[in-house]
């Protein structure tokens, strides 16, 4: 294999040889190479196959616009699909694979598609696979398997990712000459500057071009400038960092590839870091993309962008061919041709489509290097399949509508092309900026901006080096000044001045046949979209560029049309017979280049995916081997198995302990809110449905709150601690929402109320001591207040000292048994819990978890908001009319009178017992009146809670049933998911102790 590496020059380190594998072949490159430059150095012409026709494809560009060299990099779970070889830095032992072509890029069986190119036109899939409809499933399998680039790893990503927030006065995107000038100018004012560039080193076009700044070689200027920036404390320089998204409020997202160039990142190294940058001012200096030319077979390997050739020659010291032809419609490419010639390549001819050719500087330069120039000529076609062999050249009058018959062949293995330049207006557009068509340079340039950003350099249609430096420096000073920094006089730069002739647009190249019948003239290489496809779309009635894009897939690939879109718009404009400005661009959306999922996720994976909240007694529960249940962000013990018990046995034992003796539960997860201020009663009267003001100090009450729709939102016990002081509890999951709800009303609707709300959920831990022996237990550990019924009746609260600890003691019950809830400062909670457990041994104190909690309350018919209710249940449906005060107004009250809420056939809350006395139906099971009715059988309700009840000796269920309150005593049928039916007796939801005597003892 030929080495195309030059003996000297470039920025590669010839002393550091990297071995790498490409499609199984072992090749060598140097440190400083990209995968693309290393492949070119090894004379690898075919790197991929195209999407639709499986045509062999080679490297076209040297940057983010590369459509063909899309690679799968790395092995196993660290593998990355669809990376651009042109932006992938080579490292030792890299393993790269083409993402297209089977069995190989050199022999691809699907290349047969190319023979049917005319059939596989735009819209082929839409038209062909629509019918018969039933066969779509079959088609889909084959179509899906042939789509996509690369494969995702099967296992977890082994690499580390991170997020980073950053703030600055001036963010400069792009470190070419204009970006560097902007960053230097801004930094000299003392402004905080962040400079990002996607390449491994700063310099941009200066790294590829042979020029001078202030009479010294540009490289010297570059070194000096980069040194100044990196030594400046207020400047953050980020290489290998792509600003990929520009969002509202001058918020820019960028991804830094910290370790991609190292292969396997060592140890704790972050592989990629997502920067979230808030900038006061943004300078966009992203440069421009060179446009291809749409001649026949312009996708053959060996056809490359002229500027890319210049980059490979000057920066990577690679000569991508031996004998080249340049085809151009503008002056800039002449310098690429000269660079190729100077490096030792043969340049057969410059084919310039313009009748008058290039300006003096370009022409003199070419002539000095002995390069023949043919003005008013075209390359209409190339010969060669896996590599260009000949260019077909013809004279041209300048009339695009004519066909061209007489061509001559010029032998070459490299065809350099340049169709002019398109500014990278991506971020400007994402920021909401408009683009305007520049009639002189024939490109879209940034117009009006909506945010604090400005574009400079080639990205703003400023083409000369002098202009880039000057405008860049101006932008740096202006933005720093806008941030309030004092600006010194501007710096001037001295650069060589070129005399140029203007570009003449050439959106498609005339061929030997009409553009609809000639060989493929590709616009978008990655998606195989051709000139003929765009014209077909117009014939089929598409007018909008957005529709044409979707019909032809123009600009859909990983390069997002960076290469082909403007040519496509030119072709569309011609076919529609409108000016290109009227066609406009498609929408620019983030991301500018693909971003890995890893960078998006950052560190928020695994154990820190979401906060896990644990109670103060959590360690004790874990020591007991209690399985945990996730409730919101909380972990709560589910049940406490003993001696290999299953959940059923454990829950039955725990329930019986609570009913017969003594049980204890960690209820700390309840939401708790302290309410104080002189209007506390007034606020709570409006929020809760019962008469809050009638509660005596020291009393507790069960309260519910409704949404404005009159439907149940949350519930809990509240206690009146003082005239204007309350303690509210909420459901575990509802705590934050309830506090927000209260604050919302207080702050936005009733600011005249003087009420202070404080969350005390974390401060207090709550221990429920439940069962007939609970009073004895508290007495045993020592309580300074009388616990007797007459002194401490049901539904009251007292400040007390328990076992030497200060506590709030509530006589409340969520089980129907005699019970106390102990509120204790969380730092003491574990000590209190252990004290109660030790003292409770003589009563066989039994800890229980959420499952037993649910069974105990279900036996009493207590509702759990969010389980028995679902946001469509009113308090009347729950038979909670006794809680609805008629003496006052409260949120949701009026809605309770709405026609739909007073219907008698609403789903209402009732209890159920299986007639067979043994089946525990699944929660969620649908209820029907008559299972024999034809499908779809009308459903009349569903089961919301269902348990085996140890103390009752049979299963119980709660649920919502149409007209349920009137149907007590009837039977309905539970239709189980396995197709069987269970007859259910409709009963009162209160199964146990219907007179509620036990909690009052």
């Amino acid at each position, binding site marked *: 294999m030929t080495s195309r590496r030059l003996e000297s020059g470039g920025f590669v380190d010839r002393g550091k040889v990297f071995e790498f594998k490409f499609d199984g072949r072992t090749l060598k490159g140097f440190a400083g190479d990209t995968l693309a430059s290393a492949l070119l150095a090894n004379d690898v012409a075919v790197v991929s196959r195209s999407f639709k026709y499986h045509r062999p494809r080679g490297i076209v560009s040297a940057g983010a616009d590369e459509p063909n060299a899309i690679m799968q990099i790395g092995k196993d779970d660290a593998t990355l699909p669809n990376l651009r070889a042109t932006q992938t830095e080579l490292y030792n032992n890299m393993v790269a694979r083409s993402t297209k072509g089977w069995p190989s890029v050199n022999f691809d069986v699907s290349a047969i598609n190319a023979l049917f190119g005319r059939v596989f036109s735009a819209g082929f899939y839409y038209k062909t696979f629509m019918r018969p409809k039933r066969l779509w499933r079959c088609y889909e399998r084959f179509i899906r398997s042939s789509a996509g680039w690369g494969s995702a790893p099967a296992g977890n990503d082994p690499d580390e990712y991170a997020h980073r927030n950053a703030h600055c006065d001036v963010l400069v995107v792009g470190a070419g000459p204009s970006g560097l000038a902007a960053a230097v100018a801004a930094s000299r004012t003392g402004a905080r500057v962040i400079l990002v560039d996607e390449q491994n080193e700063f310099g941009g076009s200066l790294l590829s071009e042979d020029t001078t700044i202030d009479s010294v070689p540009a490289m010297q200027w570059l070194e000096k400038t980069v040194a100044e920036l990196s030594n400046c404390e207020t400047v953050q320089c980020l290489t290998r960092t792509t600003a990929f998204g520009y969002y509202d409020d001058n918020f820019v997202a960028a991804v830094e590839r910290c370790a991609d160039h190292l292969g396997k990142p060592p140890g704790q190294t972050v592989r990629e870091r997502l920067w979230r940058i808030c900038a006061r001012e943004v300078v966009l200096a992203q440069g421009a993309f060179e446009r291809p030319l749409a001649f026949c077979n312009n996708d053959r390997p060996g056809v490359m962008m002229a500027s890319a050739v210049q980059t490979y020659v000057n920066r990577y010291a690679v000569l991508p061919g031996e004998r080249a032809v340049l085809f151009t419609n503008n002056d800039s490419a002449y310098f690429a041709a000269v660079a190729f010639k100077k490096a030792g390549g043969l340049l057969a001819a410059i084919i310039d489509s313009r009748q008058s050719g290039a300006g003096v500087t370009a022409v003199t330069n070419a002539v000095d290097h002995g390069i023949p120039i043919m003005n008013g000529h075209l390359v209409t076609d190339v010969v060669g399949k896996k590599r260009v062999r000949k260019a077909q050249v013809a004279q041209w009058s300048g009339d695009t509508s004519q066909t061209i018959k007489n061509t001559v062949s010029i032998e070459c293995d490299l065809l350099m092309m340049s169709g002019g330049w398109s500014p990278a207006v991506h971020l400007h557009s994402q920021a909401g900026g408009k683009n305007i068509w520049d009639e002189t340079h024939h490109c879209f340039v940034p117009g009006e901006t909506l945010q604090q950003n400005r574009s400079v350099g080639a990205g703003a249609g400023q083409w000369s080096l002098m202009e880039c430096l000057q405008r860049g420096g101006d932008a740096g000073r202006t933005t720093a000044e806008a941030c309030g920094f004092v600006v010194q006089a501007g710096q001037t730069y001295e650069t060589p001045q070129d005399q140029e002739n203007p570009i003449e647009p050439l959106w498609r190249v005339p061929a030997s046949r009409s553009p609809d019948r000639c060989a493929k003239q590709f616009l978008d290489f990655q998606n195989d979209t051709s000139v003929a496809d765009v014209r077909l779309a117009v014939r089929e009635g598409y007018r909008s560029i957005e529709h044409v894009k979707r019909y032809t897939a123009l600009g859909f690939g990983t390069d997002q049309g960076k290469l082909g879109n403007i040519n496509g718009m030119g072709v569309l404009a011609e076919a529609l017979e409108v000016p290109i400005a009227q066609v406009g661009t498609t929408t620019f959306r983030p991301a500018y280049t693909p971003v890995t999922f890893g960078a998006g996720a950052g560190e928020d994976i695994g154990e820190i995916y979401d906060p896990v909240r644990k109670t103060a007694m959590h360690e004790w529960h874990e020591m007991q081997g209690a399985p945990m249940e996730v409730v919101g962000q909380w972990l709560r013990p589910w049940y406490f198995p003993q001696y290999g018990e299953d959940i059923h046995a454990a829950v039955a034992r725990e329930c019986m302990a609570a009913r017969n003796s003594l049980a204890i539960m960690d209820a700390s997860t309840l939401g708790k809110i302290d309410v104080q*201020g002189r209007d506390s009663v007034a606020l709570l009267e409006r929020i809760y449905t019962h008469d809050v003001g009638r509660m005596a100090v020291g009393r507790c009450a069960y309260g519910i709150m409704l949404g404005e729709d009159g439907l149940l939102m949350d519930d809990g016990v509240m206690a009146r601690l003082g005239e204007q002081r309350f303690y509210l509890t909420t459901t575990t999951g509802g705590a934050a929402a309830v506090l927000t709800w209260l604050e919302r009303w207080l702050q936005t609707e009733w600011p005249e109320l003087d009420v202070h709300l404080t969350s005390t959920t974390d*401060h207090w831990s709550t221990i429920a001591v439940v069962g007939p022996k609970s009073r004895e237990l508290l007495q045993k550990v020592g309580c300074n207040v009388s616990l007797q019924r007459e002194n401490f009746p049901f539904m009251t609260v007292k400040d007390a000292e328990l076992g030497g600890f200060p506590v709030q003691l509530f006589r409340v019950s969520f089980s129907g048994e005699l019970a106390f809830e102990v509120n204790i400062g969380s730092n003491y909670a574990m000590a209190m819990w252990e004290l109660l457990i030790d003292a409770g041994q003589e009563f066989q104190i039994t800890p229980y978890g959420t499952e037993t909690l649910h069974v105990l309350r279900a036996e009493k018919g207590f509702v759990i908001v969010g389980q028995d209710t679902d946001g469509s249940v009113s308090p009347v449906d729950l038979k909670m009319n006794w809680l609805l005060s008629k003496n006052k107004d409260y949120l949701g009250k009026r809605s309770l009178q709405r026609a739909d809420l007073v219907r008698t056939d609403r789903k209402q809350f009732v209890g159920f017992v299986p007639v067979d006395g043994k089946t525990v139906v699944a929660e969620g099971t649908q209820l029907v009146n008559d299972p024999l009715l034809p499908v779809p059988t009308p459903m009349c309700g569903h089961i919301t809670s269902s348990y085996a009840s140890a103390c009752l000796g049979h299963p119980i269920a709660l649920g919502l049933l149409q007209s349920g309150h009137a149907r007590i005593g009837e039977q309905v049928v539970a239709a189980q998911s396995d197709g069987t039916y269970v007859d259910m007796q409709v009963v009162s939801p209160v199964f146990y102790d219907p007179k509620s005597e036990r909690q009052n003892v």
Partner: protein
Amino acid sequence: MSDSLKRHHCLEPFSEDSATIGSSASAEPAIRVTFDGHREFYNLRGDPADAAFTDAVKSFTGQSIPDKANTLSYRECTTCWLGPDEWLVVYPSFEAGRFEKFSTELDSTDATAVDVSHGYIVLCLSGDSALDLLAKGCTLDLHLSSFNVGDCVQTGIARTAAIIANIAEGDHYEVIVRRTFAEYLAIWMRHAGAEFGIGFD
């Protein structure tokens, strides 16, 4: 049993298995984290224009409440501004009966105080990379030019709410977080700090 034996802060289980992550054991890590789980915290609500309230607080704490947004005052206790009518008073150690006295002091005013001492813990951060760590999880600009000694802010760090207080020159920050989110935050710090080197005391 003495009070200190009965008190357990929420990061005791975390401390037991924490160590220096991300840098060699001998080198001083770029971030040090210590836990202070036994301070007292009072949530204070009142109208700063009400002299009765401000005087009462001043006579008890010996310092004025900070009236400038996102600042703190510091003497015997730290008082952090949380909102136009809300502050967090932090005493460095527990003293039985102090809150009751404070509360009584406010009785004659419209202001209120709630003892939330058991609801918070402080993670004290120091070291060259302390700000880098915070910048990974906090979207605010904590650069000295906008967040100086004497500043505090209620914000989010990673996926939890917290108060960050800049209490001393030279990269010392206190992160005040709710008890049940503290373990998450400590684990987050252990992950996020690994690239700099982080040690827990």
